[in-house]
């Protein structure tokens, strides 16, 4: 485990999201797409994906930027997709909620939450049938965990001992509705404990996530079947768009402040400095490199062409 690269990967996601937020409501409104930013949850995507190889596959949801980047998805193509350009990873057909980069093992993401859970399960079934050594990871939220098909998929995965890790990112809110208004049992992973091995993890601690997912990924790769990780985390932005949701809609300023202080990036930075693993200057250098990469991605996206109207019907059929 390379702690510095875990830090850099998280920081990169945070900076990409910040750049998107800075430009999202600009005068020309160049990104025509609903966005669901990943701020606050970076430790989950990075901690899990750092255990995967290129051939492994992740299945994500509407909040897909972090998963896409952590798995190695191409940043230029992502930014072009958000700008509705033909050079985008889905040629301008998917936008923010449907990112994919098959070369890097990011499958088309689904915004009908839980849809990706059963599809990922099927992908794992196919890989098992083909005798490949691939591991599939499915990311889903606490909201999606309420869909019946998640239970169906997890049971089926265990029945067939599929090489899959189910990662529930519990960020405490389904849009703006807290858990206690939705479920009689707020302990999500406990609902599945009679079906498969479960583990509850501090989703704001990237080292915890890394270690827990390493065990789960290794077990899946060895043919020991699926596992479920519930990563307790917190979404620093509103469900959608760039706000922070403290307009009284669903959370208080104090609640947000507490979680900001508990942010996985800040937390790891404190540790790195405290344990003298890195100096501030080194981190600043890393930030600069990331900023340049993001700048270049925006240039790439802005300079790319939009799809032509005569391409409208392309790609309906395989």
């Amino acid at each position: 485990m390379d702690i510095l690269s875990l830090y850099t990967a998280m920081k990169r996601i945070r900076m990409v999201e910040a750049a998107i937020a800075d430009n999202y409501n600009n005068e020309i409104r160049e990104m025509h797409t609903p966005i669901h930013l990943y701020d606050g949850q970076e430790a989950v995507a990075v901690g899990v994906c750092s255990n995967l190889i290129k051939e492994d596959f992740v299945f994500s949801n509407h909040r897909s930027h972090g998963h896409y980047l952590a798995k190695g998805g191409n940043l230029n193509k992502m930014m072009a997709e958000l700008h509705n350009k033909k050079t985008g990873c889905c040629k301008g057909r998917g936008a923010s909620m449907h990112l994919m980069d098959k070369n890097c093992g990011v499958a088309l993401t689904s915004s009908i939450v839980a849809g990706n859970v059963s599809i990922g399960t099927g992908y794992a079934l196919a890989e098992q049938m083909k005798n490949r050594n691939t591991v599939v990871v499915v990311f889903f939220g606490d909201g999606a965990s309420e869909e019946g098909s998640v239970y169906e998929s997890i049971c089926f995965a265990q029945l067939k001992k599929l090489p899959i890790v189910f990662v529930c990112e519990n960020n405490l809110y389904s849009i703006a509705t807290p858990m206690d208004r939705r479920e009689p049992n707020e302990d999500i992973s406990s609902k599945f404990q009679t079906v498969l091995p479960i583990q509850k993890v501090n989703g704001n601690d990237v080292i915890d996530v890394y270690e827990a997912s390493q065990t789960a990924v290794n077990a899946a790769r060895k043919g020991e079947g699926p596992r479920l990780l519930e990563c307790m985390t917190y979404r620093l932005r509103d469900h959608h768009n760039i706000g922070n949701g403290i307009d009284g809609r669903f959370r208080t300023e104090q609640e947000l402040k507490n979680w900001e202080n508990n942010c996985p990036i800040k937390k790891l930075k404190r540790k790195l400095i405290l344990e003298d693993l890195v100096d501030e200057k080194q981190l600043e250098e890393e930030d600069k490199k990331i900023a340049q990469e993001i700048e270049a991605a925006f240039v790439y996206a802005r300079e790319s062409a939009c799809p032509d109207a005569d391409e409208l019907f392309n790609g309906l059929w395989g």
Partner: protein
Amino acid sequence: MPWTVINKEDEINCDYGHSDEHIRKLSYAEAIREALSQAMALDHHVFLMGQGINDKVGMFGATTDLYKKFGEKRVFDTPLAETGLTGVAVGAAISGMRPVYCHNRPDFLMLSMDQIVNHATKYNYMSGGECPVPLVIWAVTGQGWGSAAQHSQALHGLFMHIPGLKIVMPTTPYDAKGLMLQAIADNNPILFLDHRNVYNQRGNVPEKMYKIPFGKGIIRRAGKDITILGISAMLIETLKAAEELEKTNISAEIIDLRTIKPYDIDIILDSVKKTRHLIIADTGWKTGGVAAEIATVVYEKAFKDLKAPIERIALPDLPTPAAYTLENAYYKTRKDIVEAANRLLEKNKI
């Protein structure tokens, strides 16, 4: 109990004048089984899943013992979890496999709608053509024996509305084999909807592998006075109606579209140009249904060729009743088709 088992004595010959003594005869279920077996032998990516598929009477005999030949990894029973398991089939298809997911009744597909409508039919388009979903979903529509409202729905009209889905509705054993092989070879989500009543048929089926292209209809009986389109099991009724009409010197041309999405509009227009009358007999409901869609396109393209309004023979807007007296009042038969034909041609005389 004539419901899940096909009785030998119920079988009818269905070669419609194209009978050839030298060609081997198979039942409808045997034809499908042969298609599945040949596809699986040819391509190790093909696999079968479904509730009760390894049951001895699995899918009316169409899947019986296939697991013995290909193993339980490639032919497996599924839990009653249609939403999740349809997603499983979609995911396997994305990975390059060619799943065939079987349902005894299309009514259960209502539980799969999220995966069919929101996922399977969208992925290739949403990915800019990078993510094909070669998946066959196969279901057998029920009719009769008190099947009632939840075991008898012909839902193809509902699915016809969804872009990205192809819908196959064979009636003869020959077509069942050729269309199933084409469906498995296709790179898109296919809904293979057949009907309990077509399983009573036995007819010519060559042993070799062959595929029937989608969107290519066939004239089952040539005629000159009126064109009658028979969809799925209603084709059987239209053919019986044609025989009766012949007795009163009415010559009906019978068309079997075989696939309703895409469907062969040219074969209909060519026939209507000649007969100038059209009846569409469908197994589904009338409002917003397949007959309504086809009629509209015929009006758009051939209004001037028609001498009288198109007649739709379809189900009333009601759930299917169970009691046989009510079932008889609900379902349409050859009698309704004959009456419609007489009505149309009579109108025309005045």
